[in-house]
């Protein structure tokens, strides 16, 4: 028994130390009270990321620790994984859209250590989270564990932060092209006497984003004709600040962990373009600031031996301001004409405030029924307010609405045949409570068709199974009948350009995954890993933005079936931790299944491929690591990444001559990076070159991405 506990503890430990091969003396002090000394032991075990991949869920797991010294944004790493596509609108801090197996936008939910990422503020995204803070990223495709207690429809991304036991200081600073600078600080200090742990985090980003826009139209000197030039962006500054202090205790009799935290974030962003780069903006800005307080509690053996509890509570004050107070029409050379309408909305001037207080309560209780069998009960409360007013526009009617969601999940995990077969069954209950104050335009918003104070219940359920056929090959499949409740903007509008639709129904999707995966040890340090997955998403009541009858107004409506199917595959090769090769490819086949239009006509787009979305792309990576090159314990890692995205039409492919159609062109992007780490990883210096060949690249129509960019980064890691 004692031996098994030791083995379990060792596995826990190696979960923190990815792929560690310890050949020296290890001193381990974990959950066990015992202290164990091993002499000359060789420990080989699966990393936590590998363990996640072997779960019944369809999941990608990225070990950020391995690449943290070269990485500037976690989106870069996520974008290189199979089945994922991130479409960016510009440079640092630009808006982006992440799709997982064909579903994107609000269908994807983001978590930070299991808590909704929104809780850190609406300005905090994958793109600006401090990289040093992150241990790994878990990407769940379609079927999402009940533990997250969320109403994600297409997938979820969970960012897991570092939880080191020792004191440490992790500092990095870097600078690069387009006047970009970045500093991250992340540390932990334990007061020796009290055992009180402090974890400060500070992250500052700045970029002028003044990359060159190619072949843009500007006026000649006489302002009588257009000429074509290459010119830098001139109004795209981005500044972000994120600070957090967490304090608490660990490994107490009453708590394995109890922490309280406070964080603040501030994002200041200039806005450079509208939906396409021909709509040039020169004055409008967006500012977001948030303040969050949170507490979390974790305890194994809570009340009884077999029960463990994790509970979190968080409250966020989130305030965003959009400044659109200029009637100007800009050109890419920075010149302008006094225009007729505001830059963003194309209407009157606005100083629009949005305050969205967010309260999140999350509880997970896990109960071990027997070895290999566990029951988990989860609850999540997500209460969001939506208060808007305008300091400039006197005609704007302030709004104040509240939306509360309760999600209850129950899951049962089982394992048979010495772990060769594992299953998970889960059920979720979604309770949506809406209290509406607005009654304007009731024929449009449906305010008279729904009670002003209403509660609805929706059930969801799923199952997942994984069977290890041989050591080198496993099969897994999963299914979820998932629900996504409308978000505030979709349901309540934004008070200006988006009408409320109080009759909006939740999106419902039946998500199926089937995959084969495994790894084969070829001997002599050669390891081959492979994975192939297929998926089907049958979405109903798809929530889609539609242009309303009046000019420029939008409203979210439910549309009938949208069916998506596709697959992805990945092959990875590793030789003795030196050579690493990876190749993945993704295919996404999304078809319009709406047979009839809203007016009842036969839809001409029925069974057509959904426009304006990439449908086939691939990533390749080659890296080589030299060790003990100059001094003992040093390491030089050279890496080359290549991304290819097939071109796609902006509108329905079937109609109009091919020569007249607008396309988002094929992308070929090559990145290079070099990392030199010495003194056992204490000092790290990296140089990265993105878009090595300065290729003209677009993720979206007429929104050019940056050209060749260099970034130099120094990281100091003291432990």
């Amino acid at each position, binding site marked *: 028994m004692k031996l098994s506990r030791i083995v379990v503890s060792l596995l826990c430990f190696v979960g923190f130390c990815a792929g560690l091969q310890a050949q020296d003396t290890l001193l381990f002090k974990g959950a066990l009270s015992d202290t164990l000394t091993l002499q000359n032991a060789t420990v080989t075990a699966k990393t936590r990321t590998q363990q996640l991949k072997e779960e019944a869920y369809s999941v990608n797991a990225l070990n950020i620790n391995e690449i943290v010294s070269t990485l500037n944004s976690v989106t870069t790493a996520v974008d290189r994984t199979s089945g994922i596509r991130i479409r960016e609108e510009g440079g640092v801090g630009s808006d982006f859209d992440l799709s997982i197996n064909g579903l994107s936008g609000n269908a994807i939910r983001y978590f930070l250590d299991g808590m909704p990422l929104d809780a850190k503020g609406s300005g905090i995204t994958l793109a600006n989270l401090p990289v040093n803070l992150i241990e790994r990223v878990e990407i769940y495709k379609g079927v999402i564990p009940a533990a997250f207690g969320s109403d994600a429809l297409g997938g979820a991304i969970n960012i897991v932060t570092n939880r080191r036991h020792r004191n440490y200081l992790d500092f990095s600073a870097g600078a690069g092209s387009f006047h970009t600078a970045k500093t991250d600080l992340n540390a932990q200090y334990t007061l020796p006497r009290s055992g009180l742990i402090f974890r400060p985090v500070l992250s500052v980003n700045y970029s002028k984003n003044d990359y060159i826009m190619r072949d843009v*139209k500007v*006026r000649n000197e006489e*302002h*009588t*004709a*257009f000429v074509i030039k290459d010119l830098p962006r001139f109004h795209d500054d981005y500044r972000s600040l994120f600070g957090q202090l967490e304090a608490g205790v660990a490994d107490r009799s009453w708590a394995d962990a109890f922490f309280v935290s406070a964080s603040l974030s501030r994002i200041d962003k200039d806005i450079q373009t*509208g939906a*396409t780069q*021909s*709509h*040039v903006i020169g004055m409008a800005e967006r500012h977001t600031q948030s303040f969050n307080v949170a507490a979390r509690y974790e305890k194994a053996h809570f009340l009884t031996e077999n029960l463990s509890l994790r509970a979190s509570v968080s409250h966020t004050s989130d305030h965003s301001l959009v400044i659109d107070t200029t*009637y100007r*029409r800009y*050109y890419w050379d920075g010149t302008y*004409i*006094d*225009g*007729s*309408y*505001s830059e963003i909305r*194309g*209407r*009157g*001037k606005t100083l629009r405030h949005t305050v969205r207080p967010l309260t999140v309560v999350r509880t997970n209780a896990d109960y071990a029924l027997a070895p290999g069998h566990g029951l988990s009960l989860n609850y999540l409360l997500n209460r969001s307010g939506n208060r808007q007013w305008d300091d400039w526009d006197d*005609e704007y009617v302030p709004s104040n609405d509240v939306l509360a969601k309760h999600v209850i999940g129950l899951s049962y995990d089982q394992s048979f045949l010495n772990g060769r077969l594992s299953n998970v069954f889960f059920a979720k209950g979604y309770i949506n409570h809406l209290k509406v104050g607005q009654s304007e335009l009731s024929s449009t918003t449906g305010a008279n068709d729904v009670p002003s104070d209403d509660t609805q219940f929706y059930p969801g359920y799923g199952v997942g199974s994984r069977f290890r056929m041989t050591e080198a090959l496993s099969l897994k499949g999963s299914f979820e009948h998932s629900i996504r409740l409308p978000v505030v903007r979709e349901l309540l509008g934004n008070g200006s350009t988006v009408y409320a639709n109080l009759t909006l129904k939740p999106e419902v999707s039946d998500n199926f995954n089937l995959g084969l995966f495994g790894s084969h040890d070829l001997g002599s340090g050669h390891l081959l890993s492979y994975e192939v997955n297929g998926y089907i998403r049958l979405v109903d009541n798809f929530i889609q933005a539609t*242009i*309303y*009858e*009046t*000019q*420029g107004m939008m409203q979210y409506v439910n549309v009938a079936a949208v069916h998506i199917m596709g697959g992805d595959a990945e092959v990875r090769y590793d030789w003795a931790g030196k050579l690493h090769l990876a190749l993945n490819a993704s295919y996404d086949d999304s078809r319009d299944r709406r*047979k*009839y*239009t*809203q*007016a*009842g*006509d*036969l*839809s*001409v*787009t*029925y069974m057509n491929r959904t*426009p304006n979305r990439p449908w086939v792309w691939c990533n390749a990576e080659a890296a080589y690591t030299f060790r003990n090159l100059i001094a003992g314990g040093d390491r030089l890692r050279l890496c080359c990444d290549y991304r290819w995205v097939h071109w796609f039409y*902006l*509108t*329905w492919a*079937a*109609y*109009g*001559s*091919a*020569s*007249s*159609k*607008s396309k988002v062109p094929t992308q070929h992007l090559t990145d290079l990076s070099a990392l030199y780490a010495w003194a056992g990883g204490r000092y790290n210096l990296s140089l990265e070159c993105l878009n090595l060949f300065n290729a003209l690249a677009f993720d979206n*129509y*007429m929104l050019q991405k940056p050209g060749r960019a260099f970034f130099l980064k120094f990281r100091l890691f003291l432990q």
Partner: protein
Amino acid sequence: MKKFKFFLMAVAAVIAATVTIACDPTDDPEKPVIKDTYSFDLFVCAVKHGGMSQNKNGTYVRSVSALTADQPRVEFQGKGIDITQNYTLESITRGKYYYQVPQKATGGFVKFHIERNAAGEESIKEDAEVPFKDNVYAARKYTHAWIGDSTTLVVVGTKDNATKIIWTKLAESNLTVQAEGTFDISLPENYNAFSTAGLLTYRQTDKKLYYFYIVKPKSGQSDAATSMTYIAIINPETMAVESNTAVSTDLMEETAGSAYGELMQSMIMQDPSGNLYVAGLKTVNGQEMGVLRRIKKGETTFDPTWNGFPNPEGKLLTVQYLGYGKALAYSRDEKLGTKIDSKSHFYSIIELADGQRSRVQFNGQDLPYCGGRFSQRSDVLNGKAYIGVGGEVAEDGVEQDYPTIYIYDCKTGEVEKGIELAKGFCFDIIRAMAE
């Protein structure tokens, strides 16, 4: 001497009559006569009707040489021009050219035409593109008129959140900005915004620009009952406002359209005598209903005794002069639906002498109701009116017929069936263009 004068007057009268008859009876003074070589550009949208909004579902154009029934069905599978991202459905047209502030928002005006190669494949060729000078216009949000024997295009819009009315004169040939300015028109007390664009037209008989605009309590959409229409008469040479008169709300509260001029829908027509007709609306029992008002030749205000659209079923959306004292009306029956795509829109012929109105019929049957609040599926050329009708849909949702163009003989009133279009699209525009 008197006999000689009488003879001269008689000769002049005969010449005038001859000229009048020689003119195509469908002549719109704003439109060049297209005699021998012409084509028709047909615009369709996917999923829902376009116009007056950004239909991102796809807008496609085919150019065909004739609309008669002997022509092959117009298909869009792999054919036609996809203009969705670059150009607006709404446009000024003259001869073979289109003029517009494009969807692609380059910050200026563009002039282009559609070409067909030997295989019948269409493409767009841009003929001129110039930046704005001082006055800036948004895509779709302007109105226009042709002056100076159609060598000059006048564009009018608003600025500063629709509190000032601006104008620009452009040379037709290369779009050079010839002059710009702001009308000397102020908002009356208790009104805070002008209509986005208003309606501008040029009347040949008195050589004046007529600008119909609306004043509203606030910018954006508002109830017609809170609005008031004005008629400003503009000197086309100096662009000075010579008169500015409020229209009694008993006659008209708003013009039929005011945000986008006549870039898509025709709401003003003139007959060869110089009478000027304007489609509008006024509130009746809480419902906005169509009216058709007339400014007689020599007058500058609406004739309060005349309404060419009495007993309306709903809004009057477009009017086009057919000749022979008749006009083609496209209107809506409110009780059949008020959404853009509602099958509640229909065509009728108005006898301008007495306002009598009758549905356009083929083989004794009314042409079916159509969707498309913002559609202009009709054009008038060489004594024929080409009227497009969307495919009828049965109760089971199956489209029974192909969208079809019917050809109305303006003189005889006879209707023949014309060309068909592929099913499933929302048929929105017919434009007769010079080759």
